[in-house]
């Protein structure tokens, strides 16, 4: 499961340089940015963030205020402070406030990357499971009276959520801007999920106030009836589609399944496909290679094969959502590209 790291700094050059510099760790985490604390809060509402790296001195909402807010509302998200105005007193204040790391500017990018990776590793210390049924797994957590933080990613929609268990009791849930029971209903409606387990649960109020079974049943009822969960219904309805609009594109899941089927049909088991997912963190690179293609008069980019010297190579398919195929480096590249551009 690709993790999101949110970097907050009012220095745009610093943000850009960190974002670019950390791209080489793109197989472990993707980087999101915000230019101050308030913008970071918006990002936290919309996305599941695994870690926040923040500057201290920023306009509108500074790093200390952001740290305080995160500790109160997102206590599971570790925060690393980076600052150009470091004093021992400030460092102590940050660590007392709940920060897991403190790095004075200027710093080596690798040092920051090491701190990020160490924190992220803790997020999945209890293991990772792929393509499991969320309902069955979560009942197991209750039965075994587990204390843990569970992060889930829905295989179909790519949405991410978090659940907090204390001695087998579900205390809280979070997905996008939903918390408590509405978030739990949404998460429990996911059929197949990827799960990572962290063997701790931050201190928090019990916002669920119910056994697990009734929550699972209610989630199932809402799903069957197609009723949006409370809070989601407040979101603006999609624009009506004019009659002459072309038919909607297939959803991301069906698009990815089609690609997989196409490769299997044309190549059997030789396709070397390891995973397929949507990931917009490649968009910066895609923008650049698209504009270079235009300069050369090559036309629109259809597909790109990328070798970063890692255990997997990547094939990117640009669209509104960038689709990424991770493949075995020994796969028949030419053949795969031919199949994909057909």
């Amino acid at each position: 499961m690709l993790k999101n790291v949110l970097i907050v700094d009012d220095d745009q050059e610093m943000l850009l340089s960190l974002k670019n510099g950390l791209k080489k760790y793109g197989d472990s985490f993707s980087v999101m940015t915000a230019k101050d604390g308030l913008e970071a809060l918006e990002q936290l509402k919309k996305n599941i963030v695994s870690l926040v790296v923040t500057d201290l001195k920023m306009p509108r909402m500074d790093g200390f205020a952001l740290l305080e807010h995160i500790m109160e509302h997102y206590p599971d998200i570790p925060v690393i402070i980076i600052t150009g105005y470091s004093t021992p007193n400030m460092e102590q204040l940050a660590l007392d406030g709940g920060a897991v790391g403190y790095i004075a500017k200027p710093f080596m990018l690798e040092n920051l990357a090491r701190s990020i990776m160490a924190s992220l590793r803790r997020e999945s210390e209890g293991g990772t499971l792929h393509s499991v049924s969320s309902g069955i797994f979560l009942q197991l957590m209750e039965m075994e009276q587990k204390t843990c933080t569970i992060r889930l990613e829905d295989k179909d929609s790519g949405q991410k959520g978090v659940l907090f268990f204390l001695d087998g009791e579900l205390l809280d849930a979070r997905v996008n801007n939903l918390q408590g029971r509405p978030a739990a209903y949404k998460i429990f409606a996911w059929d197949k999920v990827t799960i990572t387990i962290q063997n701790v649960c931050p201190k928090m109020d019990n916002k669920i106030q119910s056994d697990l079974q009734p929550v699972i049943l209610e989630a199932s009822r809402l799903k069957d009836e197609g009723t949006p969960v409370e809070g989601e219904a407040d979101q603006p309805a999609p624009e009506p589609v004019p009659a002459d609009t072309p038919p909607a594109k297939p959803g991301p899941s069906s698009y990815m399944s089609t690609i997989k089927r196409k490769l299997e049909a044309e190549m059997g088991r030789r396709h070397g496909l390891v995973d397929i997912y949507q990931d917009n963190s490649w968009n910066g690179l895609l923008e650049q290679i698209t504009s270079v293609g235009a300069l050369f008069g090559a036309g629109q980019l259809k597909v790109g094969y990328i070798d970063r010297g890692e255990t997997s190579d990547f094939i990117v398919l640009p669209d509104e959502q960038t689709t990424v195929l991770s493949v075995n480096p020994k796969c028949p590249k030419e053949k795969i590209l031919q199949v994909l551009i057909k």
Partner: protein
Amino acid sequence: MKELFKDILNMEGVKGVLFLSLQGDVVFKKFSSQLEKKLESRDWIHFVGSLNGIRETDLVYDNARIYIRKTGSGYLLILMDFFVSAAMVRLSCDILLPALKPMKGSKGFKRLFKK
């Protein structure tokens, strides 16, 4: 320097070669004169920055294909037709690569080449 890229440029279907330094400077180019002007006037720094961490990439566009290979001193871009064998281009680059390592003691762009 043209001699260095001769084998690649002579391959059927290869339309041109561009070699950029890691800082985004155009070190070598061989295309039509009109395209060369465009390439010279572009700021390549962001493009080179976006390739950070990439060893090689094969990009398929509507009308052409671009193969990019990282070397010790920059990035080699090869514009080619669809039918060109990427394996052959890769092999030619493998042969060329040792000559594109930075030379110790030389200054300017000359330090980028062994021959």
